Each structure stands twice: as structure tokens, then as C-alpha cells.
């Protein structure tokens, strides 16, 4: 782990969750330290998104405890410390008449609070967040007119504008073209290195992700692996077999040959073919 003395940002203890009779998550234990970049991987239907929703308090665990910055998620109120970027595809109506500025401003609304309005200092922060993701020249463009990669940057800016200490991203690269994916990961890496923002990246794209993260967690109903990336690399084959139930070959994504066909990103498993 990157810094073993850093405090925990997230602690998950013995968490289980089921939809009706179907067990989706079983006895999950996980700790994420400040400043780490965790890649949470698992096949479709492995409970990744459910796990995200539990972390964000959108769903309630049947068993176990989740603590954010040391306080239980049920009573956690300081949501501006956490930024969330969801799968872009199903979270917004692309005909929505809003500019990039308006969308990013929404990231501050919870923090500003009821009965208060956007002030000059807020507008400055919004512009800074837009600049941080390199979208300055699109500030007053309609969000629906941007490409998938650009939209995803805007959603990152919306999550960053409240200056979160923890950023949670749920499959952020679905529907984003190959070149943008790489830029996108570079940008995340920079946020992690320079701003010391703790990142949790949920993805099924094991290949591309593993170059950037510091820690890896493999989820498929249970947590199959959770630890340092280097340990993961050593045990990778074994882990993959355990998780997917059969042997898998991971196609490496490197800067040197970054023209793999990413157009199937939304399919079952990019980067992992059996």
C-alpha cells in the first residue's frame, strides 16, 4: 500500500447485501487509506455497482458496517468530502438544456446548502474545476453536444468542484472512445499524485486500469483479493481464475501499442478474454 500510516478514508466490515433471496455481496471487508488509488474489478453482475451504492448510502447493507472518514454511512452528512462519478450512459438525458458551467455548478449545490445562492467565489471554483479537466473552451456549450469523453470530464469536474477527499468512479469509461480513455486515466493519476485525492475506480477493464492504480480489489460476490497492486500482479492468473471460474488471459494495454479495439468496452470484459 502506498502509505501504510495514512488514516482510513473508508472501512467496510463484514458487509452483506441481498436483493430478496439473492445474495449479491457476502461478508465484504475492505479498508482504503488516504491517498491510495484503488481499482475495484469484477465481472458484470459481480455486485460492484451494488457495493458502490452501499458506500454512497443509496442502499443500506443487510449486515455489517461501512464507515466513511470514521463515521457510519447512515449518519454521514458531510457528502461534499466525497465526489461521485456514475456511469455516464444511463444517468442523464442528453437533450437536457444545460451548459457545462451549469452542470459543474450542480456539484456545489449540496455543499452550499438550502436557501443560499451561488456567489462569486463559487463561480471561481466552478471555473477552476472546469479548467482542471481541460474543458475551459467548452464552458458555455450545451452538455448534450459534447462527445462521450468530454461529457465524462465534465462529470469529473462536477465531482471535483466540491473539493472532495475521496472520489468514487463507477465504470466511468463505458461508452468513451479509446484515446479518451487513456487521457482520462492519466488525468485521474494526476489528481491522485498531485492533489492526494483518494480514488476508488470501479471497472471491468482490468488491463488498462492496472497501470495506474496503487491497490486492487477483486469482487465477485465475495472479495477475492484486496491488496497492493504488485501482489496482485504476482497472483493475477490465480485470482482471475478464482473470480471468473475459468482461466483468462489478460491483454496488456500499454502506451506503446494503445490501439486495441476498445469499441467493445461495454461488453462483458474488456481486456480480459477467455
Amino acid at each position, binding site marked *: 500500500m502506498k502509505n501504510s500510516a495514512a488514516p482510513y478514508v473508508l472501512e467496510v466490515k463484514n458487509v452483506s447485501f441481498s436483493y430478496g433471496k439473492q445474495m449479491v455481496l457476502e461478508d465484504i471487508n475492505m479498508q482504503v487509506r488516504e491517498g491510495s488509488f484503488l481499482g475495484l474489478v469484477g465481472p458484470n453482475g459481480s455486485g460492484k455497482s451494488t457495493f458502490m451504492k452501499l458506500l454512497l448510502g443509496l442502499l443500506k447493507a443487510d449486515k455489517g458496517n461501512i464507515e466513511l472518514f470514521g463515521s457510519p454511512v447512515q449518519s454521514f452528512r458531510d457528502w461534499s468530502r466525497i465526489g461521485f462519478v456514475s456511469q455516464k450512459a444511463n444517468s442523464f438525458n442528453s437533450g437536457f438544456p444545460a451548459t457545462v458551467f451549469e452542470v459543474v455548478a450542480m456539484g456545489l449545490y449540496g455543499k452550499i446548502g438550502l436557501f443560499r445562492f451561488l456567489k462569486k467565489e463559487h463561480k471561481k471554483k466552478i471555473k477552476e474545476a472546469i479548467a482542471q479537466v481541460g474543458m475551459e473552451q467548452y464552458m458555455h456549450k*450545451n452538455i448534450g453536444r459534447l462527445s462521450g469523453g468530454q461529457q465524462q470530464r465534465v462529470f469529473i469536474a462536477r465531482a471535483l468542484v466540491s473539493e472532495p477527499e475521496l472520489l468514487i468512479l463507477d465504470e466511468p469509461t463505458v461508452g468513451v472512445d479509446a484515446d479518451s480513455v487513456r487521457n482520462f486515466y492519466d488525468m485521474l493519476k494526476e489528481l491522485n499524485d498531485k492533489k492526494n485525492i483518494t480514488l476508488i475506480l470501479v471497472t471491468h477493464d482490468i488491463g488498462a486500469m492496472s497501470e495506474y492504480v496503487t491497490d486492487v480489489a477483486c469482487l465477485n460476490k465475495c472479495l477475492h483479493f484486496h491488496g497492493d497492486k504488485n501482489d496482485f500482479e504476482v497472483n493475477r492468473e490465480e485470482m482471475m481464475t478464482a473470480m471468473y471460474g475459468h482461466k483468462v488471459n489478460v491483454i496488456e494495454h500499454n502506451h506503446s501499442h494503445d490501439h486495441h479495439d476498445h469499441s467493445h468496452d461495454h461488453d462483458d470484459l474488456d481486456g480480459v478474454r477467455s
Partner: protein
Amino acid sequence: MEIFQQLTFLERGIAAGLLIGFISPLIGAFLLVRRMTIISEGLSHVTLTGITAGVLMMQTSAFFAFINPLYTGLLAALAGSLLIEKLRQVYKHFQELAIPIILSAGVGLSAVMISIAETGYTEWYAYLFGSILTVTLNDLLFIFLTGVLSMLIIGFFYKELLSISFDQEFASTSGISVRKINFLFTLLVALVISMSMKVVGILLVGALITLPVAAAILFAKSFRHVLFLGIIFGEAAVLGGIVSSYYLNVATGGMIVVTGIIILIGAAAVKKLLPEGFLSKEETV
């Protein structure tokens, strides 16, 4: 409210119309982006139930003799909006079912009560299609108060309403209490519908909520843009409708809606004729 007392009946009507032309598009913009404009139809028919109940109470009980049916209409709209929310939760996978259920219940109950009440055709006609010339001082006061209340709600909760309309999940994770704001929004819709009742009538209320923003969204790039253009188109429809109905000697509520349709067609034509990007110049924040 002495200002109101000095107005002539025509001025009262115009004042009421302008208030409604301003607020309807505000609420319409939020309904539009949430794909919920149809809710205005459901609620307007429930409002009719409240109004018929009010009229019936006036006739049957001396105690209620001075009640303004607009207030009972508002109560029914509020109750209807809560029922729609409830039905949406019950039929999670068929949410659009809530509207026809409420709408038909509203119309059915109204039909029964209308048949009991001893009221002439003209009064019902006024509630169905609106009657700007019969806006009483009491009505104008009702429209003014509900209008101010609606504007305060929209003003104070603008950012929460916008964030929820855009992305409910994100709004929730950013610390906005989505359920409470959604509840407030439903009440707001009921408020606006019952205030518009007298001027455009039950059957035409939805038009003022929908038509101006339908025209506005053809040009708008930002949400503020939709609100701004929506208000301009809304007021234009109201004024155009009042003036043209005066000279043509036809129903004002109907003419307001017809003007709204003309504006919409005109907007679509302008959009088609103008070169791409002509109106999408940078907007300043």
C-alpha cells in the same frame, strides 16, 4: 391590496394573465426536463373535482356560502399530487399509470357532482375553458398569493430542483435530500395549476405550462435560457390571446392557447430557416 381594488375587470384579467404567463413556464421547464409535463393534465382534472365540490358546498351549506371554489380546487390538486406520487411508488415499473388513474377519477367525480349541483352551463364553461373577464378581486388575490408563493419556492430551491432534474442519483450523493425536494415540487405543480384555472380553464391549463417551454427548448442551450425564453413566450401568448380575443370577440382562454401554438410553430419555422449555430453564440454567465 388596495391597488387591486382600483382595477377594472379588464385590468384584473390582464394582471391575472400576466402572473400566470410568468409562472407557468417556470414550472413547465422543470416538468419538461423531467419528462413529466403530462402530470399537469392529471392535476388539472383533479382540480375540477375540487372546484365542483366547492360549488356544491356553497349551494348546500350556508356555512360555506362565501367560499371561493378556487381554494377547494387547490386542496384537491394538492391531494391529487400526493396521490400521484403514491401511485408512482406502488406501480414502480409502470409510473405513467398514475396520471390516467388520477385523471379519470377526477373527471368521474366531477361529472357526478356537476349533475347534483344546480349550476348553469355558463359557470362550468368558465371553469373548463377559463374566463378572464370574470376574474373577481377575490380570484386575483388568490392568483397573486399562490403566484408569490410559487416564485419563492422556485427561487429558494432552484439549485436543488435543477440538480435533481438533471441527475437524481448525483443530487442524492451530493447531500441534497431528494425525497423532500420532490415532495415540495409536486406541491408546487399543484399550486401553479390551481392558480391558472380561472384564466385558461381546466382543459387548457397544460397548454400554458407546456407550449412556451416547448418553443423555448428549440433555441435554448442552458437551463436559464429555457426559463428566460419560456417566460417571454408565455407572456406573449397571454397578451396576444387577450388582445386577439378582444377584437375577434371569442373565448380568451382558447385564444391564449391558440397564440401559444402559433408561437410554437413560428419558433419551429425560425429554427429551421436559421443556419445551424446562429443562435448558439456564447452566453455569458
